[in-house]
C-alpha cells in the first residue's frame, strides 16, 4: 500500500492543506520568484559584466543553485517547479488568469505534442547543450540573462501552441534532472486510495472543475507511483471532490524501486548528470588550467574539442563503461533478463550517487562564494548602489576547512545509498541473496571508482 510507512502531512498539518488548496498560494510565490527572475535578467543585461558583482550571476548560480540542489531537490523533490517563474507567463496567458479559476478552454492552439518527444530526451539534449557552454554561462551575466529570457520565451511560445505545461514536462533542461532526482525525495504527492480514483467517473483532476485546472503536467494522480512528472502544483488537491490527494513524508529514494516505470531516457539522464558533475569538477576544481581555458572558449577549435569530448563522455563513454558492468553482471550471474532492461534498471543506481556528487560539487563553490550575495543584494547592478548597507561586504569564504569533510560525508552517503539501491535492484531481478550480491559487485566497483574519482578531484 502506498501509505505504508508514510506520514500524510496534510492530515498532520491542516494549515498546510489550507495554504496549498488556496488558489492564491502558487501565484503569490511565483510573483515573488518572478521578481527575482526579472531582476536577474535585468542585471545580467544592464549591470556590470563582472560576475561576482552581478545579482544575476550570484543569485542564479550561487543562491538559487544552492537552494535547489542542496535543499529543495533532495528534501522536497519538485517543489521548485511549484514556484518556478519560467512557465508562469505562458501559463497565465493560457488561462487568461493568474489567480482565479477562469471557466472555459485554455487559450492555446491545442496542438498535439509529438509522441516521440514524450520523454526526457529533449531535456537530456537541452541540458547537455547548456552544459557545454556552462563555463561561459556561469561567469558572464549577459549570457545568463539571455538564457533565462530564452527559457521564458520558449515557455510562452509552447504554451501558445500546446496545452498545459509542455515546456516543463518535456523541454526544460532543469526540470529533467529535478524530476529524476525527485525520485529520491522524502516527499510525495499521491492519492490515498487508488481505487477511489479508478471508480471516479468525472476525473476532475484531469478535466478540472470550478476549484482548479486539470493537471497542467498531464499526469493522472490516481496512477501516480513516482515523483518524476508531478510538478507539485497542487491543482489536483484543489479539484479532487473525494479529498483523495495526500502529501506524504516517506523514506528517501522510495521511487527508485518502481521497476515498471524505468526508462532509457531517464537512465541516460542519470548518466548525463553524473558525467556532468564529474566533468564540471575536473574543469572548475581540477588542476588542469588548459581544460578550463578550453571550456572557456579561449579559441573556437579548443572549445569544439572540449564540447565533443564532453558530449562523447556523457553519451558514449560513461554509458559504454556501464554497459561493460552490466555485461559483467550477466556473465557472473548468468541472468536471462534482456541486456537493455538490465542496463536501464541498474542505471538507477547512479541517481543517489549523482545527486550526492552535485551536492558535494556545489559545496565547493557555494560556501566559498556565498558571501557575494550580501554585496549584490545592496548593489545588484554593480553600479555603486548600497540599498541595504551591505554593498561593501568583503568576500568571505565560509567553512573552507569544513568543505572537504562535507564533500566526503555527502559522497560517502551517496555511495552507500547507491550500493544499497544496486542490491535492491538486483533482488528485484534475482530473488535469492547470493546471486543478487554477486550481481551487485560489478556495479559496486563502478560506483566506488566514480566516487574515488570525485574524492580525488575534491581533496586533491
Amino acid at each position: 500500500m502506498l501509505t505504508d510507512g508514510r506520514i500524510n502531512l496534510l492530515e498532520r498539518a491542516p494549515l498546510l492543506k489550507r495554504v496549498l488548496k488556496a488558489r492564491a498560494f502558487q501565484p503569490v510565490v511565483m510573483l515573488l520568484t518572478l521578481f527575482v527572475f526579472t531582476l536577474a535578467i535585468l542585471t545580467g543585461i544592464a549591470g556590470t559584466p563582472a560576475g561576482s558583482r552581478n545579482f544575476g550571476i550570484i543569485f542564479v548560480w550561487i543562491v538559487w543553485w544552492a537552494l535547489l540542489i542542496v535543499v529543495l531537490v533532495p528534501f522536497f523533490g519538485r517543489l521548485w517547479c511549484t514556484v518556478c517563474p519560467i512557465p508562469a507567463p505562458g501559463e497565465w496567458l493560457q488561462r487568461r488568469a493568474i489567480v482565479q479559476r477562469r471557466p472555459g478552454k485554455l487559450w492555446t492552439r491545442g496542438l498535439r505534442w509529438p509522441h516521440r518527444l514524450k520523454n526526457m530526451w529533449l531535456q537530456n539534449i537541452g541540458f547537455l547543450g547548456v552544459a557545454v557552454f556552462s563555463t561561459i554561462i556561469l561567469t558572464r551575466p549577459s549570457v545568463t540573462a539571455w538564457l533565462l529570457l530564452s527559457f521564458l520565451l520558449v515557455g510562452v511560445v509552447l504554451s501558445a501552441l500546446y496545452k498545459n505545461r509542455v515546456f516543463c514536462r518535456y523541454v526544460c533542461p532543469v526540470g529533467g534532472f529535478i524530476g529524476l532526482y525527485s525520485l529520491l525525495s522524502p516527499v510525495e504527492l499521491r492519492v490515498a486510495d487508488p481505487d477511489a480514483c479508478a471508480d471516479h467517473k468525472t476525473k476532475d483532476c484531469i478535466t478540472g472543475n470550478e476549484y482548479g485546472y486539470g493537471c497542467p503536467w498531464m499526469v493522472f494522480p490516481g496512477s501516480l507511483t513516482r515523483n518524476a512528472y508531478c510538478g507539485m502544483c497542487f491543482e489536483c488537491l484543489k479539484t479532487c471532490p473525494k479529498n483523495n490527494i495526500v502529501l506524504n513524508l516517506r523514506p528517501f529514494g522510495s521511487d527508485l524501486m518502481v521497476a515498471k516505470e524505468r526508462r532509457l531516457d531517464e537512465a541516460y539522464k542519470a548518466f548525463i548528470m553524473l558525467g556532468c558533475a564529474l566533468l564540471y569538477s575536473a574543469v572548475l576544481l581540477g588542476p588542469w588550467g588548459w581544460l578550463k581555458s578550453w571550456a572557456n572558449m579561449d579559441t573556437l577549435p579548443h572549445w569544439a574539442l572540449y564540447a565533443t569530448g564532453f558530449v562523447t563522455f556523457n553519451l558514449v563513454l560513461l554509458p559504454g563503461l556501464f554497459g561493460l558492468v552490466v555485461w559483467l553482471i550477466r556473465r557472473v550471474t548468468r541472468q536471462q533478463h534482456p541486456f537493455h532492461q538490465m542496463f536501464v534498471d541498474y542505471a538507477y543506481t547512479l541517481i543517489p550517487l549523482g545527486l550526492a556528487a552535485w551536492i558535494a560539487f556545489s559545496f565547493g563553490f557555494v560556501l566559498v562564494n556565498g558571501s557575494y550575495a550580501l554585496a549584490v543584494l545592496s548593489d545588484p547592478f554593480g553600479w555603486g548602489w548600497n540599498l541595504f548597507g551591505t554593498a561593501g561586504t568583503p568576500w568571505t569564504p565560509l567553512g573552507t576547512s569544513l568543505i572537504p569533510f562535507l564533500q566526503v560525508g555527502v559522497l560517502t552517503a551517496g555511495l552507500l545509498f547507491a550500493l544499497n539501491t544496486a542490491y535492491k535492484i538486483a533482488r528485484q531481478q534475482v530473488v535469492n541473496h547470493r546471486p543478487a550480491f554477486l550481481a551487485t559487485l560489478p556495479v559496486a566497483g563502478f560506483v566506488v571508482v566514480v566516487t574515488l574519482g570525485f574524492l580525488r578531484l575534491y581533496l586533491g
Partner: protein
Amino acid sequence: MKNRTELLALFTVGLILLGVPVAALGYQHWLRPATAHARIIDIEARIPEDGGFGPDAVTVPMGEPVTLRFASMDVTHGIAIGPGLDIDLGHVDPGKVEEITLTFDQPGTYTYYCTTWCSPDHWRMRGTIQVIDPDNPAFVLPAQSDLVIERLIQEGVDIDAVHGADQEHGETLAFARPPSAEQGAALVDTLVIPTELTDREWGRSHTPMQAVELLAAHNPQSTEADLRDVAAYLWTQDASLETLLEAEALYNQNCAACHGQYGGGDGPAADTTAEKPVAFADPGYMFEMRSDVLYAKIRRGGMGTDMPNFGTLFTQEETWALVEYLWTLPVAAP
C-alpha cells in the same frame, strides 16, 4: 472580490515586468544624476584590448563639482588622474566602483589612466578630461611649452635615439665595481671640484662620464673609480628623501612593469615590448646618460620602443623627481 484579486495580481505582474526595469534604469540614469550634488560621469574600465576606458574623453565645466565614477568591468585596474592633481584612487576590482568628486578651477586638459599592469597594452589605457570655461567654451588653454625639450631639439639631440650606451657596438660601459655615492660623499671634500659640477643646469645637460673627465683633468692623482664615486654622489645629492619617496611611488606604478622594480629592465612586461626596456640599474648605461634626455624620454615617450609618453600624466616637477629617483638605481645612495 475574485476580480479584485485578479486585478491586483495583474497589477503586480505589470509592476514586476515593467516597474522594476523602469525604476532601476530610471533611478540610475535619470533620478540619481538629477538629485546628486555633483554631476556624475560613469566611466567603465576595461583592458585596452577590449576598449580601455569608456568614455575615453569627457568634458566638464570649470567651477562645477563633478563626480567621476570608475567601474572595473573585467580585471583589477588602478585609477589615477594627472598631471598635478595628486589623485590616486587605488585599485578598482572587477565589479567595484571607485569615485571622486572634483571641482576644476581653470580650463585645461587632464588624464585619467590605469596604474596597474592589467594587460599587455596596459599603457594605452588612458582617458582625457577636458575642462572648459562655460563662459568661453571654445577657449582651449595653449599647450604648455617645455623648455627642456625645446633646448634639446635646438641642440640637435635626437631624443628617440639610443642613449647611454656605446651606440656603435650597442654595449654599455663596464665598471669593475658599481659607483658608490657614499664613498663619493667621503671623497668630495678632498678633491678639486670644477664649478660646472656645482651648477645644477650643467649637471642635467651632461653625463656623469663627462663629469668624471672634468674631475680627472683637475685631479690627476685620483683613480677613475674614485671619480665615478664622486660623480655618483653629485648626481644624487640634491634629491630630498620625501621627493624620492613620491617619485618611487610613481616609478612603481608606471615604470616598474617594464623596467623592473629595481631598474633591472626585467619587469613582468619586459618581454612584451618592441625594444628591450632600459636597465636603469646598469651604471654603465646610466653614466653615459643625461638627465634632460631622461626627462624628455619620460615626457615624450620613446618612438618605436613601446615607451609611452608620460607628459600628460606627470607635471614637470614630478618628471624631474622621477629622473632624480632613476639616478639612485645604479648607485648606492649616500
